[in-house]
């Protein structure tokens, strides 16, 4: 693109052929934002389907479909969505997205690791038939490198198809900046004073490349990512940021169990608890980067590293209606029941956590692996599967149905068929996972 502003016309229609255009406008694609546009469209009807497209010069974009949320107070009959995470493009084909594109969805929740910062070399380029230019061989650091990485990942046609299928509601995990970072802390020897500069470009590229409102535009190294969406009175979705405000990894056991430790930071924590406890919704969802369920003490990048904060979260969930946590990060499908006291598996089940496997990270995977016993040792963990895939959920006023979907391979090609490895029902008012089939 030339380094100058480019006007972009956009249209919103109720039909796919744009015979009934209900809104149109012009956005300026500026080089400061890598020629990304984020038009905010007001005045649409709630709970209905729309189609959109862009025009720039003589170019017309493909048509995208979106759907507005149900109106405030309306108890929708159902709300269907998929969750996805961890799309290491170089580890394999986005077969899972090929199948997700055939689903009927009201939304897609992306729970982190949209890109990876690592250099792409022969050692990790497992996607057969793919090649990359030498610019990708180094770990990314500059804004132009982050932008190039998003461009590479978004070149996948199946990912593009899912973006065009439904509205995406996104949060980040660590790899949008650097592996296992927390707040201004790097695990790789970058001082906090310097690390914030990396965070600034990582957050900037995330904003530019994903459907986010202007309120999320970073201010230097800071970005207000946590936010809330209500699907009528059926569901409330709390989109969490589990990276920007977390305390550093614990230095010892006393530190790990310190009552003051925080994963969300005090402001986000209070905002979340207020939103959970005052919610009118039947289902109250936390869209979250890292595993909440207690697994092992040494998984300190997860909520296991923040046990006091987790207990506070569980306490707020106990004052909420039908809490659900949607998570990614671990490249495994896991379904777990959230316990009032994880040390006592017979304690009350407060809610459920549905962890989606990766779209591509770690290649083909297998049903079980070396980490399986860590997870399945707990009676509250009801599913573990190490293959690639996504989770499909349908919420109704009566129940939440979650289906864990996998493909058997991704390295060779994108042709693997879709399988459902587990299907759970969670009744409204009866937290837990009832396995079907």
């Amino acid at each position: 693109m030339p380094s100058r502003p480019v006007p972009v016309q956009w249209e919103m229609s109720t039909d796919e052929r744009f015979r009934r255009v209900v809104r149109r406008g012009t956005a300026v694609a500026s080089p400061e934002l890598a020629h990304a546009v984020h038009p905010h469209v007001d005045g649409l009807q709630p709970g209905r389907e729309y189609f959109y497209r862009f025009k720039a010069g003589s170019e017309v974009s493909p048509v995208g479909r979106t759907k507005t949320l149900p109106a405030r107070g309306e108890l929708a009959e159902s709300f269907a969505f998929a969750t996805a995470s961890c799309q290491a493009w170089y580890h394999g084909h986005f077969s899972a997205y090929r199948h997700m594109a055939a689903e009927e969805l009201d939304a897609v929740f992306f729970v982190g690791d949209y890109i990876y910062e690592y250099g792409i070399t022969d050692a990790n380029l497992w996607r057969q038939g793919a090649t990359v230019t030498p610019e990708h061989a180094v770990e990314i650091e500059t804004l132009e490198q982050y932008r190039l990485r998003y461009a590479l990942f978004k070149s996948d046609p199946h990912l593009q198809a899912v973006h065009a299928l439904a509205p995406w509601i996104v949060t980040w995990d660590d790899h949008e900046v650097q592996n296992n970072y927390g707040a201004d802390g790097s695990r790789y020897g970058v001082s906090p004073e310097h690390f914030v500069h990396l965070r600034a470009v990582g957050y900037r590229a995330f904003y530019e490349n994903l459907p986010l409102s202007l309120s999320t535009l970073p201010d230097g190294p800071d970005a207000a990512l946590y936010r809330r969406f209500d699907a009528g009175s059926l569901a409330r979705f709390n989109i969490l940021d589990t990276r920007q405000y977390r305390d550093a990894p614990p230095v010892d056991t006393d530190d790990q169990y310190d009552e003051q430790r925080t994963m969300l930071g005090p402001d986000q924590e209070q905002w979340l608890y207020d939103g959970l406890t005052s919610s009118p919704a039947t289902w109250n969802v936390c869209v979250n980067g890292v595993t909440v369920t207690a697994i092992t003490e040494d998984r300190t990048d997860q909520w296991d590293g923040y046990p006091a904060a987790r207990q506070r979260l569980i306490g707020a969930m106990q004052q909420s209606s039908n809490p659900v946590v949607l998570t990614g990060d671990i490249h495994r499908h896991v379904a777990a029941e959230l316990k009032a006291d994880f040390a006592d598996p017979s304690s009350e089940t407060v809610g459920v956590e549905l962890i989606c496997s990766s779209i591509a990270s770690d290649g083909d995977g297998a049903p079980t692996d070396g980490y399986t016993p860590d997870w399945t040792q707990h009676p509250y963990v009801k599913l573990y599967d190490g293959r690639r895939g996504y989770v499909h959920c349908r919420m109704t006023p009566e129940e939440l149905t979650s289906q864990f979907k996998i493909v058997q391979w991704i390295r060779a090609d994108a042709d693997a068929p879709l399988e459902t490895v587990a299907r759970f029902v969670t009744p409204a008012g009866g937290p837990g996972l009832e396995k079907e089939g």
Partner: protein
Amino acid sequence: MSVTTSASNVPPITGLQGEGELAGIVLDWTPVPWETVVDHYAVYGARDADDVAVEPDTLLTKTVYPHFEHRGLGGASERWVYRVVTVDAASTRSRPSDPVTVSSRESVTVSGSPLAVVGEFDGKGLELALSPAGYAQYNATFPDGVDFRYGTDDVGTGWSYLQPGPADSWAGRRDHLFRLRFELEAAPSDDVDLALWLIDSHASIPGSAVLTVNGTEVDRLVFEGGATKGSTQGDSTVPGSPLKPSYIEYPLTSGLFIAGENTLELFKDDGSWIAYDAIGVFARST
């Protein structure tokens, strides 16, 4: 010397300063305020020059940090002049910063004469055993650590690229002894120098090691935090390498050494691993 300039509202950085180190020069500067969304800082440099032209041939790196470690300069002292250009999110460039001239420090690997050397002091550990990523074979290959005889043993099989520490579960969560044996025809008349160059180390717990010469405990060497990448990458001189090399050069009194076989030991009983570039003992030039 002409310096390319461009008219723009992008501010240049200020406060460019440098410090010469062994095999490298460290630059720091004051970043531009957050109001300018920075894509990167472009660092330009020229050796043995009065100024540096801002042009593709002199571009040393693009970095998002207000900091650049110019590595891989080798053991000889080198004099460099630098300028930095701010590049914003729209790829608009600032005028170049004021220049700064810095010289790296000379290493004993250049000023001295080698008495015993393992590996090349070149920013790479690739010539060492198990490099660049064979740490999983360490326990099977070096169950009792390293016992290397200079002049006889092969660095490609005899000296592990990583020296683990007790924090490393993959190496048995135990202490690890690396021993270098070498012959001297006569005891040195002057003090000698140890050169211990690392291509990387663990970022948060590089730890320390006890240095012993011929049974005499000399000191505890404390290592700088690296980037925790040297366990899988062996070349810190590759453009864009995330590795963080560090260097220890340590004087050893002549009385520690004897005619005949000498032993120098590093006993890693603290922290996690270090990744070797090379290690050697050097006589001082007369």
